[in-house]
């Protein structure tokens, strides 16, 4: 055994193993010691990473002096202990255990469900013969779930799945019901999986040793041609995944041991990859037929042929670039705008913003961060000089207190949420602040269901208590912050007694929360769209920043501010400058020094004025200021607020170029559509919510004539006179390093070797900094700023005509506008219909039965969906995801903008509801 750094410094325990004098390391169990020393002991219920349970008894060993055999997975060496792992007695029991289990397997043969069943492996290794016992009566198969096949005739009751579900993911779906030989693994109240609360995270499938739980349709019985190590295209957690590929198709996935996920995945990452194999994928360039006018109606793919014709790449690229060039040269540089993608790679995003800035000639470039954390980033830049998180998600395990506000992590960052739940189990207090009671409330010590829109009042009152009771960190305030005095004066008005009736949380709770947060050794704040998507979103974040600054809860492990980034690469897209006000690395375009730097790097004159943001682009189109747009990997015809207005704008564009993988709702308005590459079909870097730059690797080839986004961008750019010669993503990455200090020290090679590097990583060889702001803030003075926020109402309050509050958000199985997930047969089958969630008593008052149709109307639009009764929803409000084009939630929403960040108020507008109506036609 080679010496190794990890083992060298641990205390040791001397004992005898199979007659040899050996040493166990402190904390090792006997089976771990034996494995480390090269001795195999059969085991089934024991799995590295899961709590050892000691129930299968396959790992029993003989310990001298003990009456019975001992489970080596649950015992540790003591000095002088004498252990035999394969004495006659031990071997007899090990083999009998295997024989007993084998006797109850389907037809007493090798697993028909899994190629490498662990039971079969041990039976072989220990030469266990044909079982001499009669088989049990076998339970029926449960194939109800689209993603997971449940075959309990292969279950050995090892409870690995239960521990995976209850202790790793903590979704609490799996139970071990009944008793004795009737014991069985169940979901909820012994429900078929598809009818249960199972979220199909697949942790149980990954844990099962015998194939009783497997991916559906026997996909894992096929042998892959190759496996590819990559990441996930969905959310900002950035799980690392291994893709098993056969015949250029992804068969199934496996979680990898990334720092972000530790083998865990969610239903989308694990089972939602098959959208790329949907026959509706765009495979040929398409040009709008002459004379076919644009309408505001969405284009059904079935009618594609009526509106578009196929074209060659040359024709399509010429047409696309030609149209943009014409507008640039006749209407002016500012008559063009571009929306880049937060799902594409950093390299693609970097080239896109460069294309707009050097090819179009303006800063009219934006992406969906505008609709997401724009307000958080503005507040963070203003207050701390940096828009990114201070601590990674995994720091929750070091925090004593976690505030989760305006975020539903079990839905939107599911794997991240599992670590929050694990922390709660270990004693960390979760303080949940959300108008709705979401799933993670189960693990929260405090669940503040405050009135929507009252964040500033509530947060100000918490800060008021902190100052009132002297719980602030005076030293930190003095040394590391400025403008505190005006904050202190401002907070005088916000006593908990005054605020309680406004926000609906009693004063005692507000005080308790304040004390918990301020007094803990490490308090962390994680937030999401509930905070940012308001006209006072920037103000909301200002409050969170002030809370952290006044208590010194930042700049150390287990503390800090973490706006949970949504898209897999929204952090990266923002970092590389896909933003109208700043260049890569958030360097303002208005600063002449920055302008000079980039003019030098790119060799072109640049526009010193900030460009248009997403919603401003819509207004500009309808004001005849913008005539042409290039939209890549974005779907604003579903994601923009007030869709009746936005779709009018898209239909009014003279020239719209759309580059995407499906005929999205936006593509229907295009003049030319360029078929692009999906995440699994490209190489590139992607930056997750923790500031980790991670390597995405190509697993399969794009279908038909679809091309790499990178290639398409370069082709367009060169037709606009840019003269680019990038050979691939590595070339682009190296230029990015010249533009961005934050990643200057990262090399493509190192990233390829290590899969994940955290920035700031400014010099080659730096380790990367997960926790920042330890000594100072990157502001001009090095100090953090307090910026007071006044409590203001939402733009559109409920009134007699529109008495209910409409809140939009997301669902676990569907990603944002649904362009990916509704094309995945698996995910679509799990959540097929448009639903809106309302409290059952509110439904009752509307005389609507759960599951019946409900029509929702605002001043801007009207939709019909199915009404889901959910007691977690706040009375007087309703919650809906914006992924259903047959019931597009953004037809209802309000486009009023936060003045600083220009983010629309998705989280609050006034509606009325009534029974009945008709659901629209689904176009994908």
């Amino acid at each position, binding site marked *: 055994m080679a010496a190794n750094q990890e083992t060298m410094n641990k205390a040791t325990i001397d004992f005898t193993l199979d007659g040899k004098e050996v040493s166990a390391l402190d904390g090792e169990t006997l089976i771990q010691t034996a494995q480390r020393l090269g001795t195999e002991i059969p085991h089934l219920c024991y799995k590295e990473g899961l709590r050892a349970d000691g129930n299968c008894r396959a790992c029993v060993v003989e310990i001298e002096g003990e009456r019975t055999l001992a489970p080596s997975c649950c015992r540790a060496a003591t000095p002088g202990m004498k252990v035999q792992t394969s004495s006659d007695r031990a071997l007899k029991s090990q083999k009998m255990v295997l024989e007993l289990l084998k006797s109850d397997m389907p037809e007493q043969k090798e697993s028909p469900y899994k190629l490498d069943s662990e039971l079969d492996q041990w039976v072989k290794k220990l030469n266990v013969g044909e079982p001499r016992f009669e088989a049990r009566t076998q339970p029926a198969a449960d194939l109800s779930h689209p993603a997971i096949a449940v075959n309990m005739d292969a279950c050995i009751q090892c409870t690995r799945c239960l521990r995976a579900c209850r202790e790793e993911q903590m979704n609490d779906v799996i139970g*071990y019901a009944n*008793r004795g030989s009737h014991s069985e693994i169940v979901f909820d109240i012994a429900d078929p999986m598809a009818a249960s609360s199972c979220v199909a995270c697949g942790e149980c499938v990954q844990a099962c040793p015998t194939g009783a739980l497997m991916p559906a349709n026997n996909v894992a019985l096929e042998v892959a041609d190759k496996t590819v190590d990559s990441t996930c295209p969905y959310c900002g957690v950035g799980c690392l995944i291994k893709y098993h590929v056969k015949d250029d198709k992804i068969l199934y996935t496996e979680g990898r041991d990334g720092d972000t996920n530790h083998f865990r995945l969610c239903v989308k990452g694990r089972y939602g990859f098959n959208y790329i194999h949907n026959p509706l994928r765009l495979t040929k360039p398409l040009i709008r037929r002459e004379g076919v006018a644009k309408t505001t109606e969405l284009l059904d793919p079935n009618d594609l042929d009526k509106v578009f014709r196929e074209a060659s790449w040359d024709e399509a690229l010429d047409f696309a670039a030609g149209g943009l060039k014409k507008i640039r040269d006749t209407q002016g540089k500012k008559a063009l705008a571009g929306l880049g993608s937060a799902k594409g790679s950093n390299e693609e995003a970097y080239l896109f913003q460069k294309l707009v800035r050097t090819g179009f000639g303006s800063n009219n470039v934006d992406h969906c961060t505008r609709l997401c954390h724009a307000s958080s980033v503005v507040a963070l830049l203003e207050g701390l000089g940096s828009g990114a998180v201070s601590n990674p998600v995994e720091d929750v395990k070091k925090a004593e207190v976690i505030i989760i506000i305006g975020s539903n992590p079990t839905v939107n960052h599911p794997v991240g949420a599992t670590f929050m739940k694990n922390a709660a189990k270990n004693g960390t207090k979760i303080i949940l602040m959300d108008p709705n009671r979401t799933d993670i409330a189960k693990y929260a010590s405090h669940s503040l269901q405050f009135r929507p829109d009252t964040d500033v009042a509530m947060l100000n009152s918490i800060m008021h208590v902190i100052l009132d009771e002297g719980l602030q960190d005076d030293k930190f305030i003095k040394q590391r912050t400025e403008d505190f005095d005006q904050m202190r004066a401002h907070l005088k008005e916000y006593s908990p007694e005054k605020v309680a009736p406004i926000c609906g949380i009693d004063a005692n709770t507000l005080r308790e929360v304040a004390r918990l947060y301020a007094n803990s050794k490490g308090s962390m704040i994680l937030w999401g769209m509930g905070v940012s998507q308001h006209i006072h979103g920037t103000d909301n974040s200002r409050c969170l920043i002030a809370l952290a600054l006044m208590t010194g809860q930042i700049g150390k492990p287990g503390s800090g501010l973490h706006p949970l980034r949504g898209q897999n690469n929204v952090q990266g897209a923002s970092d590389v400058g896909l933003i109208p006000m700043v260049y890569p690395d958030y360097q303002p375009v208005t600063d002449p020094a920055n302008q000079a730097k980039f003019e030098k790097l790119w060799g072109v004159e640049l526009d010193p004025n900030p460009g248009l943001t997403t919603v401003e682009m819509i207004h500009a189109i309808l004001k005849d200021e913008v005539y042409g747009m290039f939209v890549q990997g974005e779907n604003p015809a579903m994601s923009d607020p007030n869709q009746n207005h936005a779709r009018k704008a898209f239909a009014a564009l003279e020239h719209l170029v759309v580059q995407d993988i499906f005929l999205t709702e936006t593509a229907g308005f295009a003049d030319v559509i360029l078929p692009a590459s999906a995440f699994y079909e490209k190489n590139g870097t992607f930056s997750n919510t923790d500031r980790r730059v991670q390597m995405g690797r190509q697993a399969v080839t794009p279908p038909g004539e679809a091309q790499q986004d990178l290639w398409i961008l370069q082709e367009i750019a060169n037709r606009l006179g840019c003269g680019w010669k990038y050979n691939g993503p590595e070339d682009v990455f190296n230029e990015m390093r010249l533009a961005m200090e934050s990643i200057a020290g990262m090399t493509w090679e190192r990233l390829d070797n290590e899969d994940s590097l955290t920035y700031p990583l400014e010099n080659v060889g730096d380790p990367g900094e997960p926790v920042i702001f330890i000594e100072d803030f990157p502001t001009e003075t090095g100090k953090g700023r307090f910026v007071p926020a006044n409590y203001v109402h939402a733009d559109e309050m409920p009134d007699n005509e529109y008495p209910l509050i409409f809140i939009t958000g997301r669902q676990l199985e569907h990603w944002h506008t649904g362009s990916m997930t509704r094309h995945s047969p698996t995910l679509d089958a799990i959540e097929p219909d448009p639903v809106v969630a309302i409290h059952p008593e509110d439904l009752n008052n509307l005389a609507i039965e759960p599951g019946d149709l409900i029509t929702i109307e605002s001043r801007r639009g009207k939709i019909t969906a199915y009404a889901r009764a959910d007691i977690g929803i706040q009375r007087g409000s309703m919650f809906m995801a914006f992924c259903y084009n047959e019931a597009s939630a953004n037809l209802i929403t309000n486009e009023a903008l936060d003045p600083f960040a220009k983010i629309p108020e998705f989280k609050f507008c006034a509606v009325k509801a009534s029974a009945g109506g008709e659901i629209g036609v689904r176009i994908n």
Partner: protein
Amino acid sequence: MAVIKISPDQIKRKKRSGPKGHAVNLTALEEVNALLGDESRQRDLLIEHLHKIQDQYQHISSKHLVALAHEMNLSPAEVFEVASFYHHFDVVKEGQTAPPALTVRVCESVSCEMAGAHPLIDALENGLSDKVRVQKVPCVGRCQHAPVAVVGQNPIHQATAETVTAAVENNEIKDTMTNYISMEAYQADGGYQTLKKVLEGKMSTESIMKKMEDSGLRGLGGAGFPAGRKWRIVNGFEAPRMMAVNIDEGEPGTFKDRHYLEQDPHRFLEGMLIAALTVGCDAIYIYLRDEYAGCREALTKEIANLENNPPSSVYKMPPIYLRRGAGAYICGEESAMVESIEGKRGMPRLRPPFLAEVGLFGRPTLEHNMESVYWVRDIVEKGPDWFSSHGRHERKGLRSFSISGRVNKPGVHLAPAGITMRELIEEYCEGMQDGHEFYGYFPGGASGGMLPESMADIPMDFDTLNQYGCFIGSAAVIVFSNQDSAKQLALNAMKFFEEESCGQCTPCRVGTAKAATLMEQKEWNTELLEELASVMVDASICGLGQAAPNPMRCVIKYFPDEL
């Protein structure tokens, strides 16, 4: 192979109506809240709360289960896995039919089987209306009155189809315990004087510990651990400490704890409190099997009585919590009992660590069988020699033998430790019943093995029977005759263990099932059974799996003619 069918339309409708899983029904939530009232929703009260629902509705519908889960901040799976573990909870899902309001439980364990349980069950299944459910249940702790049928909570002794039917028709469904020594009478006779002295510090804990050690009293639930030594060990661990009293009394053939409870509950309570105060326990949890409903009512009353009229108005006693079992023999195993008190499935824990160090709620715990603390007052007042002065054949102490089967006078017989089976039959049981020749006996319940008449002169005590592959356990003695088949009785025992296995570990969960199947064959594969037996003994987590092979092995060894 069968596939679970699920209607796509139903699923579609379900997805449109609510979030995944079971929606909380607001009416059911109101009903559950009404039942729970102001009581704490803490996790360890789960079984108590399930009882409230079962008692009210005679079953637990899934909507109430879901509502309860919501109230207690648990998931439906967490509640269901506990409810489904215990035999006395009937979980009924949508679309399933709830059981009839009245259940007649007929015991089919060893003594009752010998007394004709199966013909009785047949008669009742055919005779009683559909409005009554007939259930076959394991030992209800009334073996001296075999066969026993429990109508609702009312135990019918020497039950016949007629007497059972009459009880059903007259709605006689309650169990009462009336003729016990009241608290007044107990105090008039010198009761609670010792407890008072202990409370007031007038008796040193060291002196009490020493008396317990010198008496030689060993745990009377079956494990036989020296009581005094246990007190010292637990006392050696840091406070806060818990005490847990085991009145699960599920071993087939055992009924001594009920016997003493029904006669003199306060003697038990006093001994228990003396133990708690001596060892330094902050709270006492009494776990009483659900089948003793009359005892539960009486104990509840008497505990309240005692707490309202404590022996000392100045020095406080530790709080006493009475917790109800729910039909699971395994909860007589000390760590499984602790799990059950914590509101979980009664699955024994892996040891080490032992309960004395990490027990109830993770605290050092003094765990005792009820009878063990029943004798504490006598030992303290009369001195350790009083107890150790009893004994026969060079053994020391007293044993309460629960004797049932083919004898003339079954019942609890307090006799010297070390007495032999033959002496017991002749001196205490007035001989064998007419027409029955002594053939064999179970010395220690279903788990203590079986011995033939030719081995009825062995002194019965801790340690004396082990060399024969048997043990005395809780001294639950079942005597069988030439009218009985040892093979059949051993099968009865194995089926009992199969039914009662908690299901955690392979050797027991699968082993008992496979053994029962093998033992049902006309010819026993003795080689395979023996191989299986040795693994069950070596590798099971707890005593149930380790002892389950005993009757079977004894038949192979001592009753080979039957094979």
